[in-house]
């Protein structure tokens, strides 16, 4: 089966700094792929390139065998790629429900005129949007916080809400940027199960950036390791954790090796 996302020779330079250099990898359809690497390895830059926030210096990104290079972020979202952010970006002053309802907008098609005049199509579609948003909150366990202003939500749940908001867009590829950042082991464990569950329930492919190795090793079928903007290893959790380059990137070289 063709991969859902295919990245080839992707490069992004900021002036003289190569944030991402000649990186290639695939996300197979329906899989959970982990993107790991030390700080500054270029992981988030890759997310920004995939979602159109940055334009690549060179290389190609193909989604379902069609190039998405140079498209505006909202067009890429339209096609079914969405993401969460490392530093949570919710609509802070809106309630949990409104955050999700806003993101449901793609499921409706009524025009400005129909909205302003409250024509029948507006009312029926609006009802469907509300039902969809509430259903999502229900299955993701946030219904108890429906009317809470997002800013007042506990940290872990803010991360969860961001995932729910992303799911409201009916994505086929979900990018998660450090979803477990700042979570305790218990919460991380829960999140791990959640990621596996949404992949199955929503038939998604997931690309996840994470520093929690338990999460990456536990949930990802395939792992890509970056260091200084370059891919240094790729494979299953087992293969990656035995790769000498990966060990070197994370732990440094041993004294004997350095002497030799």
């Amino acid at each position, binding site marked *: 089966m063709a991969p859902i996302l295919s990245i080839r020779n992707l490069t992004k330079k900021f002036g003289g700094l190569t944030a991402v250099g000649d990186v290639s990898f695939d996300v197979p359809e329906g899989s959970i792929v982990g993107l790991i690497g030390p700080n500054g390895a270029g992981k988030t830059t890759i997310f920004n390139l995939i979602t159109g*926030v940055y334009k690549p210096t060179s290389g190609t990104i193909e989604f379902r065998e069609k190039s998405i290079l140079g498209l505006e*972020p909202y067009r890429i979202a339209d096609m079914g790629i969405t993401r969460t952010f490392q530093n949570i970006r919710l*609509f802070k002053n809106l309630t949990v429900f409104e955050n999700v309802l806003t993101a449901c*907008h793609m499921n409706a098609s009524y025009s400005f005129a129909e*909205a302003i005049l409250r024509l029948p199509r507006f009312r029926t579609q609006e009802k469907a949007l509300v039902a969809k948003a509430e259903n999502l909150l229900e299955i993701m366990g946030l219904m108890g916080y429906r*009317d809470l*202003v997002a800013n007042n939500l506990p940290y872990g749940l803010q991360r969860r809400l961001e995932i729910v908001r992303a799911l409201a867009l009916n994505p086929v590829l979900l990018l998660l940027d450090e979803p477990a950042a700042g979570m305790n082991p218990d919460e991380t464990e829960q999140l791990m199960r959640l990621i596996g569950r949404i992949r199955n329930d929503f038939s998604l492919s997931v690309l996840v950036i994470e520093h929690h190795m338990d999460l990456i090793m536990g949930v990802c079928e395939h792992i890509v390791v970056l260091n200084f903007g370059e891919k240094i290893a790729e494979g299953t959790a087992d293969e990656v954790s035995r790769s000498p380059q990966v060990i070197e990137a994370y732990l440094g070289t041993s004294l004997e090796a350095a002497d030799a």
Partner: protein
Amino acid sequence: MSWTYIQGILMLAGINMIAVLGLSLLTGFTGLFSFGHAGFMAIGAYVGAWISASPASTPAGLGLPFILAIVGGGAAAGIVSYFIGRISLNLKGDYFCIATLGFGEAIRLIFNNVNRFGGARGWPGVPGRSTFLVILIADVIAILFLANLVKSRHGRNMIAVREEELAAQIAGINVFRYKMISLIISAVYAGVAGVFFAHYMTFIQPKMFSLTKSTELTIIVIFGGLGSISGSVLGALVLTALPELLRAFEIWRLVFYGAAVILIMVSRPKGLMGGMELTPSGIRKVLAERNALREAKTKLLADAQSGEED
């Protein structure tokens, strides 16, 4: 105080209200500040005056019905705002604000120098068609349209742009398009307000649409509370009537006006309404939010305690 006097103030407040409601969409709901909306009022006022003034008056008009003046004035302001938006909407926050300030002043200066429209001396023969009833009807329509828009997916997308632009993009919202539509709607509202203003004063002059007027509109929106239609309505009523009520203080009235605005902003930093709506559903929403916060607090507290017992 005679009824005609009170009615006069209410009409002026009603006219301001239309412009303020439009600006409320742009500033309060989409998060873009403008200091140039008097420019759009000027376009509406002049185009409206041109359409309805008698061909015999100087400057000469077309002598067409008032309704065409309203449509024409609003449309003209909307069209101009489209081109202004194309140039300036890619600017970030404060820079957009400064660009609008420039455009507003430029529009005023163009009218100042075009003799066809009376130049700096103004345009005297505008027919007095703005009646109390017409303005009242226009205000009701303006409020209903805006309220319906804000509660739709389009309104929510605008609010999303205000809240977190990058997240809005990632959520599939065409940020530029929604900013543009918000700007055009606000300009049409300002243009229509300009038409009513011209046909209320029966005399217009570029000086009436200076930066002071733009600032006044923005102050009313902020005073009423960003993101609240009821706030904009109340703000327009209070802040248009206030200078009149303060006439007893003679030369000090604008000092008192300033002091009153400062006092309210200090005591209510989010404006009179602070994003709330004075409607049954608006009140229910606020109560639901408070309730949810209380419940969440007790829930978290209970979780924390049970966690300690483990």
